[in-house]
């Protein structure tokens, strides 16, 4: 009995000594983006598990949230002082605002290997050329026009070169019970990000009209913006966009296009990988909007695009060199060529920001089109990357009212300008 007790005590002492001498793990508090069912979330879980296995001294202590829940939690955590060390973030008025306000943006540039990252493809995000987050891809194209080529051909038409070509399809589409252009008009942001951002740049001929208007160099009540808003009225009148679009949400829009209920769909590039009907996906063409009536040559063929979202270390994370280095090590793993290729295949990014990246030859057709679009089209401002709060809310709801026939373009434009000045 005595021997057993001594042995047990000895084992306990040994265990205590081992635990005491083992190096403590570096914990990187992280906010990830995704859910357990989408590619972003599934890949996140896989990457973290693999990284932790390869680096047992680092613990990526993450919280995985998606969409509105993510934005809510970011604000709540920052306000409560519970600042993560590493987080999914952006650098614009929507994705970057809470981090900027909290003073948590950290310049990654000095820590990024110029032999690994292609700085020509990473836009400057701060006034001194800082890089607040490492973007997943080159940009987020928000105003892509998806065309079901087979469906359009079945009605006797070809890919449109002008808006009038699209309008000409309306009677034939209506006769078949099809929508011409499907948009998730129930989402206020879709009108701004996915349609109006392109229209204002095209009609004004200024790729940065929106950012200049937010700075006060232009007014949202200027004729060109009123004319741009009036384009929605015209689209409804022409039958290219149905007024019922205001009752179509994100999922229903995608479903309409995937189920061949619409000839075209308006959305961002990121939705390309979500067209689940393989026949439709194989017959889909991604394009910039064709020539609009009254558009200026300076911005012809342009698309509205925002700085891509990515992961970034916060100032709180950078404060401790051990945590900062662990987070940088994880980022290097996260942005590896293999993972970037996977993101490209999933449709999550347009083009990588890595040097010496070899684009695989066997990419899906839609992904190749996306890369082509990113390489060929001029990029212009996305509205909600610059305009936020009450003016942006009024603009989004105003465009929905215009589509529903409840407001005029001038009234909405004046309301937005009044709120911006306030």
């Amino acid at each position, binding site marked *: 009995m005595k021997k057993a007790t001594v042995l047990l005590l000895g084992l306990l002492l040994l265990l205590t000594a081992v635990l005491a001498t083992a190096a403590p793990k570096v914990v990187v508090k992280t906010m990830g983006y995704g859910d357990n069912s989408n590619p972003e979330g599934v890949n996140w879980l896989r990457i973290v598990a693999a990284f932790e296995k390869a680096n047992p001294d680092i613990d990526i202590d993450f919280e995985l949230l998606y969409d509105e829940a993510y934005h809510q939690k970011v604000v709540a955590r920052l306000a409560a002082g519970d600042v993560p060390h590493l987080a999914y973030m952006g650098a614009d008025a929507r994705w970057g605002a809470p981090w900027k306000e909290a003073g948590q943006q950290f310049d990654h540039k000095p820590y990024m290997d110029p032999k690994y990252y292609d700085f020509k493809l990473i836009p400057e995000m701060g006034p001194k050329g800082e890089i607040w987050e490492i973007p997943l891809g080159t940009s987020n194209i928000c105003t892509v026009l998806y065309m079901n080529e087979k469906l359009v051909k079945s009605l006797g038409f070809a890919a449109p070169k002008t808006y009038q070509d699209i309008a000409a399809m309306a009677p034939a589409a209506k006769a078949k019970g099809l929508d011409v252009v499907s948009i998730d008009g129930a989402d206020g942001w879709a009108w701004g990000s996915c349609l109006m951002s392109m229209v204002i740049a095209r009609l004004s001929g200024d790729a940065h009209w929106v950012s200049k208007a937010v700075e006060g160099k232009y007014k949202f009540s200027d004729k060109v913006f009123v004319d741009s808003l009036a384009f929605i009225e015209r689209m409804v009148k022409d039958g290219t966009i149905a007024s019922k679009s205001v*009752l179509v949400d994100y999922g229903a829009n995608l479903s309409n296009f995937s189920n061949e209920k619409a000839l075209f769909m308006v959305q961002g590039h990121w939705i390309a990988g979500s067209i689940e009907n393989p026949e439709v996906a194989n017959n889909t063409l991604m394009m910039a909007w064709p020539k609009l009536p009254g558009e200026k040559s300076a911005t012809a063929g342009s698309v509205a695009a925002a700085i891509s979202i990515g992961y970034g270390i916060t100032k709180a994370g950078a404060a401790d060199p051990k945590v900062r280095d662990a987070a940088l090590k994880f980022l290097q793993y996260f942005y590896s060529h293999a993972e970037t290729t996977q993101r490209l295949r999933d449709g999550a990014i347009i083009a990588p920001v890595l040097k010496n990246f070899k684009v695989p030859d066997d990419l899906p057709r839609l992904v190749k089109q996306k890369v082509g679009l990113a390489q060929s089209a001029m990029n212009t401002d996305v509205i909600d990357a610059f305009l936020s709060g009450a003016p942006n809310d009024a603009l989004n709801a105003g465009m929905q009212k215009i589509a529903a026939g409840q407001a005029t373009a001038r009234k909405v434009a004046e309301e937005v300008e009044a709120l911006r000045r306030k």
Partner: protein
Amino acid sequence: MKKRDYQALVAYLGLVVPGLTVYLVIVAYPILYSMWLSLTDFNPNRGGSWSLVGLLQYRTMIQDPAFWHALKNNLTVVAVSVFGQIPIGFALAYILFRKLVRAGRFYQSMVFLPHFLSTIVIGTMWKRLFQADGPVARLLQILSGDPTSQFDLMLRAETVMYPIGFALIWMYTGLYMIVFLANMQKIDASMIEAAKIDGASEPQIFFRLIVPLLSGTILVATTLAIAGSLRGFDLIFAMTTQGLTRMNAEVLPIFMYRTAFQDYSNPMRFAYGSAISNIIVVISVALILLSNYIGRRLHAGEEH
């Protein structure tokens, strides 16, 4: 101090202090913090210095048309709860209690079923029902013979609360029905028998016996309905989409959320949001006091 008094004091403190501490930290501190925050320009997200601005946030609020719009919607929700859910719940409970329908257990389960579902699931379901060419729109198209008909009440500020009110009644009536039914089952059956022997009709039994006996329960249910309606956020948030429908249906908690958590153009957004949340509490207390006053005038809850 005598030894016995000292022991009593220690026992007293031992019993009171833990509960009081929890109350102060979890309940009192956030309330006081919110009140303080609403009188300042402090932004906890930004941190740094702050200054007292007096009633600036409250003045801004009463000049903000969005506040009055949200308040109007909130009062509509209160009205739907008090004059919709409670009477319907009471009537259903009475029907089940008096066994006026067959398969009472089945109906009881069906009416209470929404309470087993997540509010977000229910909100999403109603949103799907009301979407373009959704089930409700299809029904309208069949009834009107117009294939372009859509259910567009959600798109107009003046009509948006009708579908939302309907969904609120569908979701919460079951709860009040169960509360009333449980209390009805405690009523002495001999009282009803006596009323019947005296020749009372079913409506007389309902209005002159059951309603007065359950007046206290009705008062409690009204208080719960008012408090619940004023802090109601989830169902309306889930039923609407960011943009026109949510702005149309905005109630005070959503207005508070939009202001404090989304309006980056307002550097005092957290202070403004706190002012809104404080006003929600004030309105809630005022309405509950009013309902208690009316209850007293009607002798609700008195022993019979």
